[in-house]
């Protein structure tokens, strides 16, 4: 190992061996430990961040072993008894509450992929067609804003607008139109969640599509125009193909989080509509584990969720490569 490391770094890091260092092999190729000592200050720079990641990110990854244990708080993670796959029983025996959470998660993910995902693409195309840079920037500033509000604020705003004594119902009542029940109505819970997501993040999500649109070569449009393509055909044959890469990339990233749907958003509104409609995998883990004290079982569900998530990202990335797209990791390297 100590042989390969210096070679690896020497290739990209060290200046080419010059005449002055030719005399001593030691000087030209300092060993791993010598380099480490030379850069000890950089090691110190890395340390605080590295420790935080280690303690609060990597160590908890290990903590997932309580999925295979009968976790007792007073005995700790390492002292609790092993129970094999007992905690996974809810998954393989198809516990109704678990299946309900899984179904709700998948339905919401599917709805998001169909209704939420395309929204910023359409908005970006609209923004991109604006002629005045100034107007475009003002609109962008307004539409990006909701992204920076917390879910608590967004949920509160929606309640104030659409709730029983909200702006909409006050207006309807004052015009004798009767009231509509939106907040706390189980029937409308999913549309409500989706419209909140669209309201909060569509504007912000256009950033990446706008950047991709800006990289499309203007000559392509000119060439298309010379060939007699109208605005519509230019969009079909120049704009959309130009967006293909970034759309696939974002779809892959989205796929990786498809078992994660609006945890805070749903948790905040769960009490009003009941678990039947609102329980998703993440709230299931929280409600059963932290609130209910079924630590092992909840961790088991969370663990399966994360593993499936990683598998989805890697699988989708592979798929993108097969289709001849750069995918996530290729982009990271460039």
């Amino acid at each position, binding site marked *: 190992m100590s042989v390969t*490391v210096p070679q690896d*770094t020497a290739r990209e890091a*060290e200046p080419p061996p010059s005449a002055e260092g030719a005399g001593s092999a030691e000087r030209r190729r300092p060993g791993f430990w010598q380099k*480490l000592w030379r850069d000890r200050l*950089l090691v110190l*720079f*890395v340390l*605080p*961040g*590295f420790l*935080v*990641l280690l303690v*609060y*990110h990597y160590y*908890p990854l*290990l*903590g997932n072993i309580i999925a295979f244990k009968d976790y007792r708080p007073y005995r700790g*993670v390492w002292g609790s008894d092993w129970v094999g796959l007992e905690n996974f029983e809810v998954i393989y025996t198809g516990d109704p509450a678990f299946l309900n959470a899984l179904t709700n998660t998948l339905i919401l993910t599917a709805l998001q992929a169909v209704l939420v995902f395309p929204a910023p693409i359409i908005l970006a195309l*609209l923004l*991109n*067609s604006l002629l005045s840079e100034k107007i475009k920037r003002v*609109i962008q500033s*307004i*539409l*990006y*804003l909701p992204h*920076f*509000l*917390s*879910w*608590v604020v967004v949920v*509160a*705003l929606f*309640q*104030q*607008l659409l709730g029983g004594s*909200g*702006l909409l119902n*006050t207006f309807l009542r004052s015009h004798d139109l009767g009231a509509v029940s939106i907040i706390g109505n189980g029937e409308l819970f999913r549309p409500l969640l989706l419209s909140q997501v669209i*309201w909060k993040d569509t504007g912000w999500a256009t*950033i*990446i599509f*706008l*950047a991709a649109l*800006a990289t499309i070569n*203007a000559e392509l*449009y*000119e060439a298309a125009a010379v060939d007699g393509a109208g*605005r519509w055909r230019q969009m079909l044959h120049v704009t959309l193909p130009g967006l293909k890469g970034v759309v696939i990339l974002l779809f892959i990233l989205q796929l990786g989080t498809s078992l994660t749907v609006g945890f805070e958003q749903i*948790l*905040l*509104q769960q009490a009003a509509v009941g678990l039947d409609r609102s329980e998703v995998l993440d709230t299931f*883990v929280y409600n059963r584990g*932290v609130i209910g004290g079924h*630590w092992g079982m909840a*961790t088991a569900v969370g663990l399966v969720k*994360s593993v499936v998530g*990683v598998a989805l*990202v890697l699988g989708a990335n592979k798929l993108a490569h097969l289709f001849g797209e750069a995918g996530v990791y290729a982009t*990271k390297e460039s």
Partner: protein
Amino acid sequence: MPTLLHGQAPPSAPERLIKAVVFTVLCLAVLVPFLAVFATSVAPREQISDAGGLVLLPRGIDLTAYEAIFSGGVVTRALGVSIFVTVVGTGLSLLVSCLLAYAISRSHFVLARPVLLVVLIGMLFSPGIIPVYLVVKQTGLLDSLWALIIPTMVSGFNVIVLRSFFQGIPEELTESATIDGASEWTIFSRIVMPLSKAVLAVIGLFYAVGYWNSFFSALLYIDDAAKWPMQLVLRTYVVNDTAMGQADIGLEQMPPQSSLQMAILVVSMVPILIVYPFLQRHFAKGVLTGAVKG
């Protein structure tokens, strides 16, 4: 910015009209909620009871609700907590992330690759709610404000953005400093940091917004209501509609619940609304360095 309309036919009049309408509606959909909340928070008592809820245009200005929440009580305390967590958290996050990102941006550093991999792999796997909760408990942070800062101090995404920005700084600058005998700390603090103000502003905003908005970690780790941040107060008194009592505010006179609620909502949005316009122009740059070069 190259304009994208070379060779495209100019839009027709009806098309322009439709676009104007669409964008007006979209902007109103964002702005009206803010307006209504702000208007209700300052509207006089009678108008609110007449309207039976939110108002869009206040008939006068009545700041009793703000007086009530700022003169001691639950909201004043929560505001202090949120400001502490946001200021201290953002400062620490920026410092630690910049140091980390700078070190792994140095190509001669032997640990640059391994540490970069640690950051990237960490981004791929999330440890899950319960294991993190248990570690926070184990490290004695439960019911401490540090639980809202330390576990989320380093964001892999932000480190990657910073690293790629630092890598874009011309090597001649850092190299000539090295030849002049400058230490890594001097290069970092005297050359790299001053050249990175724009990206620091954006990353600082991302961290600050994260701390200010963090709701779930407070719900999970903070039991003591005296240590609640704004987001928990907002959830309790606005989302869950728990009525505020005399003991919760600092005034003898009790303003209407809905003006109190709207004032709380305004206070929890205002810091973001204030910094937003200043940083907004850097967004695209900050986000894209991370996304494209990361």
